[in-house]
């Protein structure tokens, strides 16, 4: 892949419609411009890393893609469908899942019950079937064992460690059987081997056909995982291309070191 | 003939609106800036009315002066209530339902205590200027409305100055937008919130005095102000004191015109209906963030 600066890689994807196409996306909060005409095209099956300093708009971008926030300008197209104004739950059912940067578990439910929610309301609703309680339990345990939380199934999320809560957050997104998974800083605070485990897990998911966008600060993980890297600074995409090229780009280095 | 009526309805509305601004100022702070849904606020205003009534009737002091003397008492009350609120709800990160229920309970208890102590009769005060009015051509300014309106505007101006010029005032504006920034500046957000809430409670003393100067008061009078207060707050834009003032004047005028031409029984529906409309159409209000 050649190095491309400040442009999306749509030209590279010949013939195929990208799974996710973000075009000229803009979002403001009052007078503050959080996102400024962001373009991003993600082909099916790609592992995209998204990095940027704190406050650069990464989470806002995720929120606009997932429907948690509605963008003011520009558009989001997923799997060929324009998502203008579509509520988050509809996007989830179309196959777009995201985890939250600060874990948001359902606090009056157990860990297992937390996983049941996307199983019922995304997977089940999407297929139009009513899953039986034994099916639910089995799938629940399957998902929990992917993140090694099966022993904590009956615990309350707030009895888990910070690290376990992050894993639960990721597991809940995975349980929705998405086509595109956006993992928002899922690895903060994890140990070296735990980071490796999660990266391996995400790569396995990707090999099974899930397109993944990873937002991270842990560069080791980002470099090990990403086939392509995009950089967001102050609401603008300033670089987009092969990871080894992007990290050497002088604008990117400048943004992180503050020249 | 109608024109005279309209002019005076507007004037009465403006004065009423000035008073409403005083009533709402506290909520603008506690709800607009601190995100604390203190629906007991109108109840405390009525409490202020009754305190003004008792002291004024027994010692012959003007009720508004009584209120000014009572400011520290209400300030302390606000500090106490915020303390309980903070310990029981905000600190524990409880769902907002509990906080709401707490204030609802407070509103209710306040009203009932007033009924037990004072009974359900109307109370009113005699002021030096009651009954008199300022006349300018066809325009008439009843003093019992003009004086509270003017003092209210003064109070409002004082609040606005405080919020924009003093360190604590600006910290309050900051805490509503970015509590973490405050922590980074080594300012305790909790302390700032406590001060702001206490100020909002203190305004109840004055607003209560204004109320009883303008009209007779019942323990249940607070109820009709709940919707009004939030209507004004939402219409004006949460957290904007100038917005609150404009919205208050607007609602005062609309209500006054409705009352003059359609009768008093429709007045409550005006502000409450406006609130529903605003929530449905433009929840951020006229000047909101």
């Amino acid at each position, binding site marked *: 892949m050649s190095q491309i600066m400040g442009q999306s890689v749509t030209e590279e994807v010949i013939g195929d419609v990208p799974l996710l196409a973000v075009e000229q996306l803009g979002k403001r909060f009052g007078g503050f411009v959080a996102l400024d005409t962001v373009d991003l095209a993600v082909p099916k099956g790609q592992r995209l890393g998204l990095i940027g300093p704190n406050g650069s708009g990464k989470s806002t971008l995720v929120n606009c893609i997932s429907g948690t926030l509605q963008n003011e300008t520009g558009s989001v197209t997923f799997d060929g469908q324009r998502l203008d104004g579509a*509520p988050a739950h509809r996007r989830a059912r179309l196959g777009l899942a995201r985890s939250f940067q600060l874990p948001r578990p359902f606090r009056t439910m157990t860990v297992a019950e937390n996983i*049941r929610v996307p199983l019922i309301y995304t997977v089940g609703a999407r297929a139009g079937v009513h899953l039986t309680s034994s099916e639910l339990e089995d799938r629940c345990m399957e998902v929990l064992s992917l993140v090694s939380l099966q022993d904590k199934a009956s615990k309350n999320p707030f009895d888990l460690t910070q690290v376990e809560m992050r894993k639960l957050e990721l597991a809940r997104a995975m349980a929705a059987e998405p086509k595109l998974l956006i993992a928002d800083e899922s690895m903060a605070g994890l140990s070296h081997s735990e980071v490796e485990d999660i990266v391996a897990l995400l790569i396995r998911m990707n090999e099974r056909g899930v397109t993944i966008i990873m937002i991270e600060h842990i560069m080791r993980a980002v470099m090990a995982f990403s086939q392509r890297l995009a950089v967001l600074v102050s609401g603008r995409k300033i670089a987009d291309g092969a990871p080894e090229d992007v990290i050497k780009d002088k604008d990117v280095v400048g943004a992180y070191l503050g020249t | 003939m109608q024109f005279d009526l309209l002019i005076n309805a507007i004037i009465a509305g403006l004065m009423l609106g000035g008073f409403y601004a005083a009533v709402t100022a506290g909520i603008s702070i506690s709800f607009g800036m601190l995100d604390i849904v203190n629906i007991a606020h109108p109840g405390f205003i009525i409490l202020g009315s009754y305190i003004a009534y008792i002291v004024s009737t027994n010692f012959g002091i003007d009720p508004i002066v009584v209120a000014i003397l009572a400011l520290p008492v209400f300030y302390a009350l606000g500090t106490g209530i915020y303390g309980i609120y903070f310990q029981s709800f905000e600190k524990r990160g409880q769902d*907002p339902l509990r906080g709401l229920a707490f204030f609802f309970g407070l509103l*209710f208890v306040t009203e*009932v205590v007033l009924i037990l102590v004072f009974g359900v009769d109307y109370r009113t005060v005699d002021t030096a200027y009651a009954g008199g009015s300022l006349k300018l051509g066809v325009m008439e300014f009843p003093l019992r409305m003009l004086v509270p309106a003017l003092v209210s505007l003064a109070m409002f101006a004082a609040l606005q100055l405080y919020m924009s010029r003093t360190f604590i005032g600006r910290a309050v504006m900051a805490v509503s937008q970015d509590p973490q920034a405050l922590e980074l500046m080594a300012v305790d957000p909790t302390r700032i919130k406590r001060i702001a809430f206490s100020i909002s409670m203190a305004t109840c003393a004055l607003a209560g005095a204004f109320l009883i100067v303008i009209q007779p008061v019942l323990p249940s009078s607070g109820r009709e102000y709940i919707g009004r207060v939030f209507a004004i707050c939402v219409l004006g834009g949460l957290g904007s004191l100038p917005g609150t003032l404009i919205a208050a004047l607007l609602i005062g005028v609309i209500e006054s015109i409705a009352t003059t031409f359609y009768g008093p029984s*429709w007045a409550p529906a005006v502000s409450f209906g406006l609130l529903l409309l605003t929530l449905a159409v433009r929840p951020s209000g006229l000047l909101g963030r």
Partner: protein
Amino acid sequence: MNTPKFTLVLAAVAAALFIAFRLIGNDYLFFAGYTVLQYIVIATAWNILGGYCGYVNFGSAGFFAVGVYSTVFFYNVGQQYDVPLPIPLLMVIGGIMSGLLGLGMGYLTLRLRGVFFAIATLALLVVIETFVVNWPYVGGSRGAYIIPPSEIPVLGVFIHYLFLLMLGLVVLSLVAARTIERSSLGIGFATIRDDELAAEASGVPTLRLKLIATVVSGALFGMAGAPFPYYIGYVEPGSAFNLAYSVNAIAMPMIGGTMSWVGPMVGALLLSTLQQVITVTISSAANLLITGLLLIGFVILAPKGLVGLWQSFTAKGKRS
């Protein structure tokens, strides 16, 4: 226990209660019991939106009053055209009216944060009251008289009939609440209460579910209010829009426990009985005061209500 079995058990308990009261033969039991039953329905109705979804309704009295005044309206219509409507039908109509009100109001305000919904319910209460007060056909501020029949076939005494109807409504509400709680709908409601954004991200159609909750809640309020004119005989806005309904609708579930169908029932039974005792022995103002203080106390000290206290008590027992 599955739903049909639960329904049967509950119906059997209700029938036994009714028969027992008939045997005791004191009509006061029916009059007082009616109020308690009414509050069980009100508390359960409130809890479906408030406890399960976390959306507080401060204007319960308004939804209740819509049921009351819908009956007054149709009673007057019935008198005018000599087509008296049976009370069960009036209950259904009252439920539909209040349900529609919930739908309309929900549609306007449920897209906003829960706090704005709560404030809007207060506003709605006053708007409805103002309309009713200004509507002469249903009596306006002067009030309206409803004359119940002096005798009822089969049962004989009219209040027994009303009591039986309310018993039926109690069974309906409790079954509805329990069924919702145990279904995926109930799980959806709980996610809305716990974290609405995460719920949406997990595929829960939050607006749709909130509307369902508002409609069901409203309908139950309306059905509870519909027989009230027959119970009280003279309806005026002060009694129909009594703040006590709004406070009790919140206090009873919060004191009993908001997480399940049991809490509102427990809260209603205890609080309602307590209120009757206090009103008779001390005064009705003292009664309101104590209710308010209990609400504040429980909200601060025992947020999970009596049911929650009971659960921690028995859990501690098991651990030791």
